[in-house]
């Protein structure tokens, strides 16, 4: 496996095809969103301009993207913070065995395995029976958290598994309280991992559709808005939105990568 065998080139070629498979469609809509005003939904390209990118911000025939985007953004941030707090707290507790830890663990995993449709339906029914209004900020938030917290939690478990308790013991020997130990020693050490979890939670929430579909209430999140567009009238503005959203996610990831590197470098000092 050390030398560049035939297998290497075969696998590398396969990998290249795979990347093409992954990115091909996105490149297509990138091209299509740069069409001029006469552009249609399929190739060939007609004209070249940023017209459709601008159109994204106008009121569409069905729905409004900007509102949906703002809601998804805000919701994403809230989900990010809550997922981090909840999973880190639980992760801290899971460093030792306690009664009920197995049950909670399987419950968390179950949240990932139960098909999203069921969670959406369940929350919707639960709210209806209780007489509450579904709302993107209450039921929608809950639905998103059932998806992000398990991922965050599993990653936190991994982080704490590899965590060296020597630092904490040193802090305690020097007389620091539990809370101080956490803030001054543990948190800075796990910070890079938390950044990754934060970004993951945000994007999972930002893109989430199935779980939210029945519980968003009157106001849609962005993915729901987009779905509405696909089933009704569409225009290249949809493709432009796709391009913008992808660029947005990309920028976030680059920022996260840069942040992660900065934090890791500071740690190794």
């Amino acid at each position, binding site marked *: 496996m050390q030398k560049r065998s035939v297998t290497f080139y075969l696998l590398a070629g396969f990998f290249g095809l795979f990347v093409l498979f992954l990115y091909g469609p996105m490149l*297509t809509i990138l091209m299509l969103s740069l069409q001029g005003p006469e552009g249609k939904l399929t190739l060939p390209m007609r004209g070249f301009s940023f017209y459709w990118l601008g159109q994204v911000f106008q009121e569409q025939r069905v729905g409004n993207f900007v509102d949906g985007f703002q809601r998804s953004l805000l919701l994403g941030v809230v989900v990010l913070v809550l997922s981090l707090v909840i999973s880190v707290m639980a992760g801290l507790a899971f460093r030792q065995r306690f009664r009920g830890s197995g049950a909670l663990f399987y419950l968390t995993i179950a949240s990932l395995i139960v098909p999203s449709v069921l969670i959406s339906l369940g929350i919707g029914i639960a709210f209806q029976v209780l007489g509450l209004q579904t709302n993107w900020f209450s039921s929608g938030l809950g639905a998103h958290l059932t998806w992000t*917290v398990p991922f965050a939690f599993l990653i936190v478990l991994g982080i704490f598994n590899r965590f060296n308790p020597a630092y904490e013991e040193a802090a305690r020997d020097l007389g620091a309280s539990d809370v101080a130990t956490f803030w001054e020693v543990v948190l800075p050490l796990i910070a890079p991992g938390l950044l990754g979890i934060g970004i993951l939670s945000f994007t999972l929430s930002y893109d989430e559709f199935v779980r939210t579909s029945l519980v968003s209430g009157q106001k849609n999140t962005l993915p729901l808005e987009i779905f509405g567009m696909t089933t009704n009238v569409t225009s290249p503005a949809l493709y432009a939105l796709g391009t913008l959203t992808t660029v947005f996610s990309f920028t976030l990831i680059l920022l996260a990568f840069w942040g992660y590197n900065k934090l890791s470098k500071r740690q190794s000092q």
Partner: protein
Amino acid sequence: MLRSWKSLETYLLVAPQTLLFLLFLVFPIVMIGIVSFWEFNGFAMVPSFTWDNYSILFSSDVTLKTYINTLKFVGLVWSATLVIGYLVAYFLAFYVENNTVRIILFLVCTVPFWTSNIIRSISWIPLLGREGLVNQLLVAIGLVQEPVEWLLYSDFAIVLGMVHLFNIFMIAPIFNSLMRIDRSLITAAQDMGATGFQTFREVILPLSTSGIAIGSIFVVTLVMGDFVTIRIMGGGQAASVGKLIQTQIGSLQYPLAAANAMVLLAVTMAMVISILRVVNIRKEL
């Protein structure tokens, strides 16, 4: 005193997570179960206890056909993502020397998944449609006389779309398993004269089964419950359980949808448990 505070602290720490799942997972599922026994009087639910919904479900031809169709998709998508995912993960784990390059390539595979599923599904339409790029290419090189019909709004498109969307769920766990294999085991096998294929079959494959299992569980549950990809790629003609439930919800027949949902849950859980029976993933977690 110190000990009781410590245990209280532990329970306080897990309280939010426990509360979250009790409220938004356990309670909703229980509610679905309860509602599945209610009646529907034409426009609203009526609390009662009846097996009607389940009997309608089990006596209907549509239900069986829909489930079989969905299981068909599960089988196709699972095999495709398994093969593709394993090959990609294998390449990344064993054939990439530089660790930084490996991370970058892994990110290259992961980044597309940070775009909304819907948008990624829609992006296939200009490629696969009758006037799409692929067809134009095929006609141009003369491979076909007319545009190929079955590229879009067909089972092929659905499986393609799902594989496109879900393969990261297979790649990541398998990649993780492969990376955790102790390299000295592989060297030992080679020292004892094993060929590449033998090393793969006897050493690597058995050690990667937990990754395969986790990936399979994800893919199975995602496909079983999907209705978005099927709608967009299938043009509304293909049947799936998720879509059936959506339709029932759309006509406000909540009790029927709930009964359907319980059956879906049971079938999915059965599949997950059988995967877990075959592979023990406890050691991975």
